[in-house]
C-alpha cells in the first residue's frame, strides 16, 4: 500500500500522498484527494492532486484511500526527562508518540529538576532538537519548584520557548498565588493550565469516592474537589482577565461550570484524556493499579458527561495525559501506587471509539487533537493548509486491533487499556515531511 518510504528520511525531495481521504478539521475538509509536501511544509493539497502531474522526482505514497489528517498535537505528556529516565526518556517517548500518530507534544514541568527556569526550558529544547521523531515543547512551572508560592520568570521562560504555565500534577491551590499568576501572565497573554483539584479534599485519596471505594476500603476522592477548584479559578479569571485552561476534566459538574463560564465569555478552555470518556471507576475492579489515575476514574454518569462534552466542544482538547510508570511504582498496594497511565499510543484509537459508537463526528474528534490544541498554544501545525508544517498522520479508521500493553513502544507499559479491542490503526506518521513511523504490514 505504501511505496518508497525508506528513502523519505534522508532526502527532502517532494513527497506526494495520493489517493487519500483528506481530513482537515480546521477547514472542515473531508474529501478524497492528495497532499504534496516539500521542505517540511505542505505545498499543496486537494481533490485535484493525483499521481499525474506531480513535480519531477517526487516520491509518491499511495494512501489506498486511508485517512490523512494533521499529526496529533498532544498538550499533556510526561516524558520523565530529566530525572526519571528509568520510566521514560525523550527518545522512548518520541518513539511512542510516532507510533501513536502524535507529531507534537508538550511536556509537564514536573521533572527533576523542575522546569522553572530558562535553563530547564533550554534543556528540553536541546533534547527535542536531538530527537527528530516528534516535536517536543514544554510548559514552565507556575511556581518555583512547584511549591505553590513564588512565581517563575514567566516572561523570560516564554521567550525561551515555554508554551504556557502549569504546576503539572499539583494544583496552584493558594488563591492569592493563582490570582497573581493569572494577573501577571495576562501582561504577556500567557496561558495558565490548572490541575483542578482541591488538594485538601484529595489528600490521601486513592480512587473516586463512592460505593466501590467503600467496598474496597480505599479512601475516596470526592467529585466536588474538581468543580470547587475550577469555580474558584473562574472567579479569579473574571477578576484578572487571565487565560485559563482546566486540565483533564473528569466530572459532569466541572463541565457544567466551564460551559457556563464560556457562555459568560471568560477566556476559559479545558481538556480531557481518553480514560475519562472511555472508562469509569469500575476499571479499578480488584485493585488494578493501572487504572489508578489522577484525577481518578469517575462514575458512569461522569464518563457520559465527558463524552458528550467532547462531542459538543465544551471540552476543547483531548490530550493523552501520558504518565509512564515502571513496575515498582505500580506493583504495590493500591493506595501507594503512582497515579497515571501510558497514553501516547492509545490516544487515537480510543478516541475514535466515540466516532465508531456514533457519539461524535470524526472531524470534531480530530479537531480536539489537532487544530484546537495547536491554536490554544499558538502553534502553526495541526492543520492541512498550504505553507503549514507537514506534520501528518495516515491511519486506517476501521482496522480492528487489540491494545497490547507489552507491545507499546514507550519504556513503561502501564496502560489502563490493556486488552481493549479498538478500531483504528496508525499507518504512517510524518513530521516536517519526514516519515518517522511506518506500520509493519
Amino acid at each position, binding site marked *: 500500500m505504501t511505496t518508497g518510504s525508506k528513502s523519505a528520511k534522508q532526502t527532502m525531495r517532494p513527497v506526494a500522498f495520493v489517493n487519500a481521504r483528506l481530513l482537515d478539521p480546521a477547514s472542515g475538509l473531508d474529501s478524497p484527494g492528495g497532499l504534496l509536501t516539500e521542505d517540511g511544509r505542505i505545498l499543496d493539497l486537494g481533490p485535484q492532486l493525483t499521481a499525474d502531474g506531480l513535480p519531477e522526482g517526487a516520491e509518491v505514497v499511495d494512501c489506498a484511500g486511508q485517512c490523512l489528517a494533521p499529526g496529533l498535537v498532544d498538550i499533556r505528556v510526561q516524558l520523565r526527562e530529566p530525572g526519571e529516565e528509568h520510566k521514560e526518556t525523550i527518545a522512548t517517548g518520541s518513539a511512542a508518540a510516532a507510533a501513536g500518530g502524535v507529531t507534537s507534544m508538550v511536556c509537564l514541568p514536573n521533572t527533576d529538576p523542575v522546569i522553572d527556569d530558562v535553563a530547564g526550558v533550554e534543556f528540553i529544547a536541546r533534547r527535542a532538537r536531538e530527537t527528530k521523531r516528534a516535536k517536543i515543547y514544554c510548559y514552565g512551572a507556575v511556581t518555583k519548584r512547584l511549591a505553590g508560592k513564588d512565581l517563575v520568570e514567566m516572561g523570560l521562560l516564554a521567550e525561551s520557548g515555554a508554551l504556557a504555565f502549569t504546576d503539572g500534577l499539583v494544583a496552584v491551590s493558594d488563591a492569592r498565588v493563582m490570582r497573581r499568576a493569572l494577573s501577571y501572565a495576562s501582561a504577556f497573554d500567557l496561558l495558565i493550565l490548572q490541575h483542578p483539584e482541591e488538594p485538601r479534599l484529595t489528600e490521601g485519596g486513592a480512587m473516586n*469516592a*463512592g*460505593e466501590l*471505594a*467503600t*467496598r*474496597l*476500603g*480505599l*479512601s*475516596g476522592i470526592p467529585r466536588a474537589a474538581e468543580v470547587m477548584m475550577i469555580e474558584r479559578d473562574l472567579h479569579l479569571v473574571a477578576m484578572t482577565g487571565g487565560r485559563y485552561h482546566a486540565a483533564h476534566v473528569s466530572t459532569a459538574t466541572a463541565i457544567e461550570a466551564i460551559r457556563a463560564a464560556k457562555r459568560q465569555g471568560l477566556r476559559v478552555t479545558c481538556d480531557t484524556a481518553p480514560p475519562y470518556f472511555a472508562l469509569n471507576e469500575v476499571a479499578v475492579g*480488584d*485493585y488494578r493499579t493501572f487504572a489508578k489515575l489522577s484525577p481518578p476514574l469517575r462514575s458512569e454518569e461522569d464518563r457520559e458527561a465527558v463524552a458528550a462534552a467532547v462531542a459538543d466542544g465544551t471540552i476543547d482538547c483531548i490530550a493523552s495525559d501520558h504518565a509512564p510508570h515502571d513496575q*515498582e511504582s505500580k*506493583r*504495590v*498496594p*493500591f*493506595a*501507594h*501506587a503512582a497515579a497515571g497511565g501510558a497514553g501516547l499510543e492509545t490516544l487515537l484509537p480510543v478516541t475514535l471509539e466515540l466516532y465508531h459508537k456514533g457519539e461524535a463526528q470524526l472531524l470534531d474528534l480530530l479537531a480536539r487533537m489537532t487544530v484546537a490544541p495547536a491554536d490554544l498554544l499558538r502553534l502553526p501545525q495541526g492543520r492541512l493548509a498550504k505553507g503549514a508544517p507537514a506534520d501528518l498522520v495516515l491511519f486506517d479508521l476501521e482496522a480492528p486491533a487489540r491494545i497490547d500493553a507489552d507491545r507499546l513502544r514507550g519504556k513503561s507499559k502501564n496502560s489502563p487499556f490493556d486488552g481493549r479491542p479498538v478500531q483504528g490503526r496508525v499507518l504512517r506518521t510524518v513530521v516536517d515531511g519526514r516519515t518517522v513511523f511506518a506500520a509493519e504490514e
Partner: protein
Amino acid sequence: MTDRPTDSPGAPAPILYAHRHLLGIEGLSVPEITSLLDLADSYVEQNRQADKKRSLLRGRTVINLFFENSTRTRTSFELAGKRLGADVINMSVTTSSIKKGETLIDTAMTLNAMHPDVLVVRHPDSGAVNLLSQKVDGAVINAGDGSHEHPTQALLDALTIRRRRGRLAGLLVAICGDLLHSRVARSNIHLLTTMGARVRVIAPPTLMPGAIERMGVEAFTDMRQGLQGCDIVMMLRLQTERMQGSFVPSIREYFRFYGLDYDKLGAAKPDALIMHPGPMNRGAEIDSEVADDIDRSVIREQVEMGVAVRMACLDALTRQSTSNSPLGAS
C-alpha cells in the same frame, strides 16, 4: 451453652468452599459460609477437650506474615495451626512507609520459595493481601488488609451468633462505631447480608463510609434509633488517634453519643448480645460494665470461636491444595 449438634471431629464433612485463598467474604455463597461455620463448630468441641491436638496438617507449613502489629489474631492463627498439627512460623515485618510495597512483593517471593502451604497475611493497606496472593503458589488467608476485609473475624462473629441464636437469617444486627476505617465492619456486612440478616450501621457522619447503603445496610447517625429492636450489637474499635479532633471532637463527646452504655443499650432488644472484635477502648466506644456483663456480652466467646474458625479455614484451604496439585512448581 449450645444445643447445636456437632459433627464428630475428624470425619471430614464435605467442604463446599472451593477457592484457593480466603481473601474476603464478598462473593462467598450461603453454602460456602455455612460449610465453614459447620466445620468450625466441630472444632469448638475439640478445643474444649483436654487433648486439643490433631495431626490433620502434619507436615504442612503455615506462615503468619504480619505487616501490622497484632497479638490476638496472630496468636489465634498460631494456635489454630498448631492444634491441627501444622508447623507454624510467625513473621513480623515492620514496614517503613516508603518501601511498603516493595517489601510486600519481595517478602512474598522470598517466602514462596520456601513452599509454605498457607500464608496468613495481615497488612495495613487495602488490597495488599490480594496483591500478595497473586505472587505465591500456596493458599493465602487474609488476616486483615487495611480497611478492606477481615474474613475470619466475620466468620467467628457469625459462629458466635449462630451458636447463641441458632441462626443468622432474620436477625437484626447493628454495627456501631468507626465504620470508615473498619475491615471488620465490611466483612461482617457482606457475611450477614448474604446469610439473610438485616444490618444497620451506626456512626457519626465523619466515620460513615460513602454510599454504604449500597452494601445493603441501613445507616443511622443516632445510636438510640439505630439500636431500636436490635438482636445483636456489634461495637467497633475506635483508634484513639482518630478521636483527637480529626474525625470526632473528643473521646468524651464520642462516648456521650456513640459509646455503648446501658442507657443506649436499652433501645435494643432486652436480650440483645453485645460483641466487640477487641481490643476494647473502655470508656471510649464501650462502657466497662457493659463490656463485662456476663448475661449480654459474648466478647470472650468471640475469642474462643476465633481459634475454631481459623482451624476450619486452614483445614478447608489445605484440603483444597491436597486435591489440586502439588506444591508450587518453581
